[in-house]
């Protein structure tokens, strides 16, 4: 039987694109596992994760180790990116594969914060949303997971089916912000 061809969630959406001081690109598709520790099992989960150099993140936090990232992703939930769930975790936590459920986007550049301020009603000022901070929040009408990936870089994860709308919304905001910067100059 012929093997199936895989399609990336942002295929055909015209990425990457640069408008004004901002670049929008699709993130490479990675393994994503949702980890939801059972009641009283966070410590046990931590023990397993520690072998990988990871901890179970507090709300609004994420961190990286050895090419993997663990990101708080909602109530009692973290997403592990970039590696398979470590052995032994399933005894203490519900694990589910989410690798195909999300479209990852990176918005980067000096205007990134201004663009996001058009879409997300949360405080993304540098002091309020530090590097590696993350949040669940609406991007216009879509619930997203946002993470600060650098000085002026943000990773956004939206439901795969909404990737087109998300790119459209971001592009629209990028265009308006670019026009403002052009007007200032």
């Amino acid at each position, binding site marked *: 039987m012929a093997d199936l061809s895989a399609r990336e969630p942002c295929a055909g959406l015209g990425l990457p694109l640069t408008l004004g001081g901002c670049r929008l690109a699709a993130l490479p598709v990675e393994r994503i596992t949702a980890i939801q520790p059972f009641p009283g099992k966070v410590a046990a989960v931590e023990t397993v994760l520690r072998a990988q150099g990871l901890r179970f993140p507090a709300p609004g936090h994420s961190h990286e180790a050895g090419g993997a990232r663990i990101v708080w992703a909602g109530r009692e939930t973290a997403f592990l990116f970039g590696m398979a769930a470590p052995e032994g975790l399933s005894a203490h936590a519900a694990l589910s594969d989410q690798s*195909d459920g999300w479209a990852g986007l990176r918005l980067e550049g000096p205007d990134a914060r201004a663009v996001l301020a058009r879409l997300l009603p949360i405080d993304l000022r540098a002091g309020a949303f530090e590097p590696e901070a993350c949040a669940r929040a609406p991007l216009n009408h879509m619930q997203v997971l946002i993470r600060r990936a650098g000085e002026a870089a943000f990773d956004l994860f939206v439901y795969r089916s909404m990737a087109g709308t998300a790119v459209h919304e971001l592009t629209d905001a990028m265009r308006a912000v670019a026009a403002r910067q052009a007007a200032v100059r």
Partner: protein
Amino acid sequence: MTHRIPGKGLIDRTRPLRFSFDGREFEGFQGDTLASALLANGVQLVGRSFKYHRPRGVLTAGSEEPNALVEVIEGKQKTPNVRATVQELYGGLTVQSQNRWPSLRFDVMAVNDRFAPFLSAGFYYKTFMWPRAFWEKVYEPAIRRAAGLGALSGLHDEGRYEKAFAFCDVLVIGAGPTGLMAALVAGRAGADVILADEDARMGGRLLSDQPEVAGQSGPDWAADMLAELAAMPNVRLMTRTTVTGVYDGGTFGALQRVGLHLADPGDLPRECFWRIVAKRAVLATGALERPIAHPDNDRPGVMLASAVQSYVARYGVNPGRVVVFGNNDSALQAARDLTAQGVQVAGYVDPRADVSVLEEFPVYPGGQVVGTRGRLGLREVAVRHGGGVSMLTAETLALSGGWNPSLHLTCHLGGRPDWDERLAAFVPRAGMVAGMSVAGAARGRFSTAACLADGAALAAEVLADMGIAGHDMPLPAAEDRSYAIAPFWAVDAGGRAWLDFANDVTTKDVQQAAQEGFSSVEHMKRYTTQGMAPDQGKSSNVAALAVLADATGQGISATGTTTFRPPYTPVSIAAMGAGGRGMGFAPERLLTSDSQTRAMGAPMIEAGLWYRPSYFPRAGEATWREACDREVSMVRTAVGVCDVSTLGKIDVQGPDADRFLDLIYTNMMSSIKPGRTRYGLMLREDGHVMDDGTCARLGEAHFLITTTTAAAGPVMRHMDFVHQAFCGDWAVRFTSVTEQWAQFALAGPKARELVNKLLETPVDAENFPFMACGPARILGVEGRLFRISFSGEMGYEIAVPARFGAAVFERLVAEAEAMGGGAYGMEALNVLRIEKGFITHAEIHGRVTAFDIGMQGMVSAKKDCIGKSASQRPGLMGPEREQLVGLVPVDPQAELSAGAHLYNENDPATRVNNQGYVTSAGYSPTLQSWLALGFLRDGRARHGQIIRLDDGLRGRKVACKVVHPVFHDPEGGKLRG
């Protein structure tokens, strides 16, 4: 531009701009507003009033303008009610006056002015009452034609609008002397500051009356301070931004004009509506001058004294000879300032007898303006004084009835201001808005020095409150004149004296309202329409209630104010709804099969946020029905493929997962064996059906449940509630995996043959029976297989990780077509499930119980579940309930429609005779008949009866036989085979 003072003003005379008003070309300069440019061209008449169509000119130099409302024309688009005092001039600006026909100088409706005695307060209420039948046909259309300000183009608004969010420590509202000082103090201390000002240029009255500050001119000092603020990374300057509303929790609405001042805005939005969250706010909005009501005070050329100063000093407009009429020290100072700037002041008129007469212009102590003359613009002012009435020749009459602190925003959360007798004005009380400090003129501190000091002091207080250390900042020197006023609201000299220019309300209207018993301020407002125009009575409310207080003898303090509500200035609906058009209205959720589906020509239909195919047309099919009928037959005789990924999928895991599912479903889920699937019903706690779906046990402690497409979100929320509220300590976790999996239904007698073409390990009726589930390798990919059906035929659903969805769909369709089948869409899916009596949210619409749909047997007697107790209460089951039935027309070709009601054969179609209603209908090619599902009172006992379907909307009456809701294969042999 004959009316410009050489060298004066903050306009850029190196950048002339052409614009047109009512078809005539004019020239102004960069830095002009439309109002200043018109005045500089000697144009005094800019509009007609709302009710009497009286000629009107520019009254103010700010956003409170009641008169000078115009239409801005951009191509085919028209924006009505633009304030000429706010619209900045740009090259090519095209403007039209409004509320006049056929022309501004000759307006037919001005005849209303002759009938003024009949159009007084309460006119509409008194006249358009009887006969009642006249209201809709005669009165309302007539009123609508005559009333209203400006007109819309009637075209779709193609303009771009934007919304945005901002957060800060301190929001400073207003960038006059007070706001600038507050922002400086907070900015230097390192706080995150937003300074918002509605003008295109910050500085407030430093730009208009130009007091000296720290030895510099007002504009120069403001420019220096702004340069310092602009260099601070923690300060954001927002010009052209009006803070329009205050909301709970430190939230502010603000409207920013972004592209409205540019000839070619390109990709810039016209406006941006900001939602600003601030820990603290400093309100430094200054004060608004108010006019004095005297006969014919609405003639073009009559302006506020502060506006005259602004047009002279900021815009270099020559106002001609000016008479100043005021009752306070600021008015006298305006006359002095104008004289100092070279303007000829023809007279200063003040009702106060003791006013200084040692001035460079004639002073009329104890004087009053009793009239004005000039057909379409001011020529003469009649002044009554000790010696009788003098006629003063003047082109401009400058009025000052005193100052009202701009405290509107302090009232947005319900606070009420205090009446200050000394200032003859309302002033804010402390604590009207939590976290907001009111500073400067906005709380009645009017001198420049007082404003600077207050801005600095309150900012320091705010910083201390937030625990931010501030520096001591020396206060710059500035004038510190006192302000004295003798309250004076209206001249008593017969004739009509205007209060509310925008809505044509006179002092007589207010007095009449009081006489007729509308003596509370809120009643007077609604009876006379005082303060109900776009300007919301900013320049007239206080005088109106003073006149009311006088008429009722109550005093102003007891009379009180009307309520100030957001927005402070008009906000376009487009700006508030920005981002809500097209994809911004709702996200578009696309299936992995979307591209191929569209390539196959399928029209898409919305299902929740998802886009699903209606049907897949083939050559030779002229209507959707032909395609639908073919697709249904294809499933019944061969095999069909349908993308069902939109169904909600929730992964439920944990040692207590089975207990938890027992609690949320009516039926027992803990007894499902791994590898098996069960249909499940969920109730709301009030006993009504919430949703239905399947529950597959993938492992001992691992379930996958499905929800209907539309209910996926609500079911997740419900499960979160049940878990967190009642059993948070149970070892169960769940998460949505809807998007992870692409899932396809294969239905029809050849479904097994088709599924086996994709499976590495083929299945048969024994090793994978009806309702089986499990992992499966599908074309080399790890997926899942379910033996479930929503069509009544043998059915499989295969799930693969979404990245493979497109490829699997393509392969499935190709294989199915080779077997005489193919893809089917929502229309066929709907007919298939109606034939089988399967319910959707058309049936479980929120008002039906398990009993109503014949599933009371699924409410397990062995356990509790959400909704169980309520589902058994009296009234939720029994013969009085409308119960699910099937309906077959006596004439099989008679069309049935959802939404129709059911009546006994000979009963008239009235509410009391209603027996039920139809929820779903469709034509069954299988049974060669129309079929419907519906709810009928005591329906299960009435199988075999004839009932009349009555569709009043379509004028359709069809005799139907009541039958069991499962029309096709009631034994289920095909399903299980």
